[in-house]
């Protein structure tokens, strides 16, 4: 046996092991949680993972306080539904267009991020989400306003030659689809943040003055981060209406932005896996607390407050602390 003498983390799981585990988890989760109810929660969870990943790119890696991420989720949802229903588009094509539309809206918000910092940007992005919500409520000719849109179909079945038709009418296939997309987006972002582009974004987060004096065009890279993040949020939005079957503005209340913020912070922002953990925990926690009745919101709120107070690095920080303790103990045991 090899004795561990350095202080490297206990069993550093290589990236590939992590990817394989995540893939296995996505495949197995809906088979283990076999009821339609839990499979539905899994679909919501996959969408939340996408949203948390997208917000984390802007907030965790680029350091831009964005309190309006729900707007892009809404744009993805509404644009995809309207293109399919009123213009007869194919869903998959509409999905691409709706994600792009959300991305364009993100570029618009980025224009503010170039001039505003910190809390000011937070307020501007919050305003952006409020305006988007008001547009959904009041532009009745297009969005049906508060009446909402009903009878929305799930994504159309995929027919691949030689394989049975895959229908997304059930939560099992839909989860695998959205979960698979979340997996792919994670993989893409994981590579992005390790690349020089990721380093550039982190430099912007840590010191914009220094970044500028090294030749980094802050406006361009902020636009890149906002554009990509809102495209991903828009993509998540495309799957929401077909899953729920209805679309009302209230699903995109600005409170949703804060839920996404909570996922990123509770999980641990500025890391890749942290927001995923946050999204999973904050999706399942309310469901597990359902038996506590009205108390559950209180438990949820107290848990959030405790995390922010005592673990500003989120759940990921807790994991790292525990791991460091364990390895120190293992190291002490192995020392001569």
């Amino acid at each position, binding site marked *: 046996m090899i004795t561990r003498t350095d202080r490297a983390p206990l069993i550093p799981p290589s990236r590939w092991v992590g990817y394989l585990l995540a893939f296995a988890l996505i495949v197995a989760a809906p088979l283990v949680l076999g009821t339609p109810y839990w499979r539905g929660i899994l679909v919501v969870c996959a969408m939340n993972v996408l949203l948390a990943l997208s917000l984390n790119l802007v907030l965790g890696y680029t350091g831009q306080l964005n309190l309006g991420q729900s707007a892009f989720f809404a744009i993805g949802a509404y644009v995809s539904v309207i293109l399919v229903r009123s213009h007869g588009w194919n869903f998959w094509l509409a999905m691409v267009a709706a994600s792009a539309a959300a991305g364009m809206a993100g570029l618009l918000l980025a224009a503010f991020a170039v001039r505003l910092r910190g809390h000011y940007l937070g307020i501007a992005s919050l305003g952006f989400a409020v305006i988007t919500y008001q547009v959904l409520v009041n532009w009745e000719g297009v969005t049906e306003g508060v009446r909402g849109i009903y009878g929305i179909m799930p994504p159309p079945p995929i027919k691949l030659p030689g394989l049975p038709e895959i229908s997304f009418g059930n939560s099992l296939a839909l989860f695998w689809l959205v979960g698979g997309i979340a997996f792919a987006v994670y993989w893409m972002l994981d590579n992005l943040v390790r690349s020089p582009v990721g*380093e550039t974004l982190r*430099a912007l987060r*840590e*010191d914009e003055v*220094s970044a*500028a*004096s*090294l*030749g980094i*065009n802050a406006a361009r890279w902020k636009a890149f981060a906002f554009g990509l993040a809102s495209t991903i949020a828009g993509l998540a939005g495309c799957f929401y209406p077909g899953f729920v079957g209805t679309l009302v503005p209230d699903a995109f209340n600005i409170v949703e932005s804060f839920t996404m913020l909570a996922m990123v912070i509770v999980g641990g922002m500025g890391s890749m896996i942290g927001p995923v953990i946050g999204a999973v925990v904050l999706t399942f926690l309310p469901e597990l607390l359902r038996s506590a009745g009205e108390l559950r919101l209180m438990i949820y709120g107290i848990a959030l407050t405790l995390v922010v107070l005592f673990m500003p690095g989120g759940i990921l920080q807790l994991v790292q602390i525990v791991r460091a303790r364990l390895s120190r103990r293992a190291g002490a045991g192995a020392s001569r």
Partner: protein
Amino acid sequence: MSTPLLAVESIELAYGDVPAVRDVSFKVDEGEIVTLVGSNGAGKSTTLRGVAGLMRPRRGRIVFQGRDITSLPAWERAIAGIALVPEGRRVFPFLTVRENLEMGGYKDRRDGARVGARIERMLDMFPRLRERAGQRAGTLSGGEQQMLALTRALMSEPRLLCLDEPSLGLAPLVVQEIFRGIRAINAAGTSVLLVEQNARYALETASRGYVLQTGGVIASGPCTELMHDARVRQAYLGRG
């Protein structure tokens, strides 16, 4: 004479409506160390911010290598060859020392081998940084952070290195090391524009100096002369 590397012509810089620099002109020739000295609030740092492009002048012109850069944003000036070591060092605290240096080579990021070779040279210049290459910059001491800020700026191989208060908050021994580094950088061919509150260090390091007071230049000349100027001695070097 040939055109100066940097010529600042009667610039006025203001924060909102409050002018901090009223009318400042100076030049830096190729290969020189030029210093701007003066007391707190004289406008030294503001002038430097103007040169680096962090503030736009309301009046006047800034010419770099014969090109008018008055309206260029900071990042384009960095690419043109003006590197700034900002006041308070401002390293990227959560990036490692090596990553900070990599960011310093941002404008040549497509040539990894060249950036890598430059990083090695920087780590040779300050061996203490080599020991800490894998450490987060935020965990370095103040002096080490200043060395990192200095080398990070050099990573872009600038023509003009602008230093804003490099001695700020550092122990005297460390300050000496930093200034030795600055002289070595200059000897290797980089022109330096130095803003420094510690006038003694500044005048001993630079070849020419400008004395700023309330947003204007009140004296200028070779540092050996400025050191004997009565006004300078009285105001900045202690009684004399």
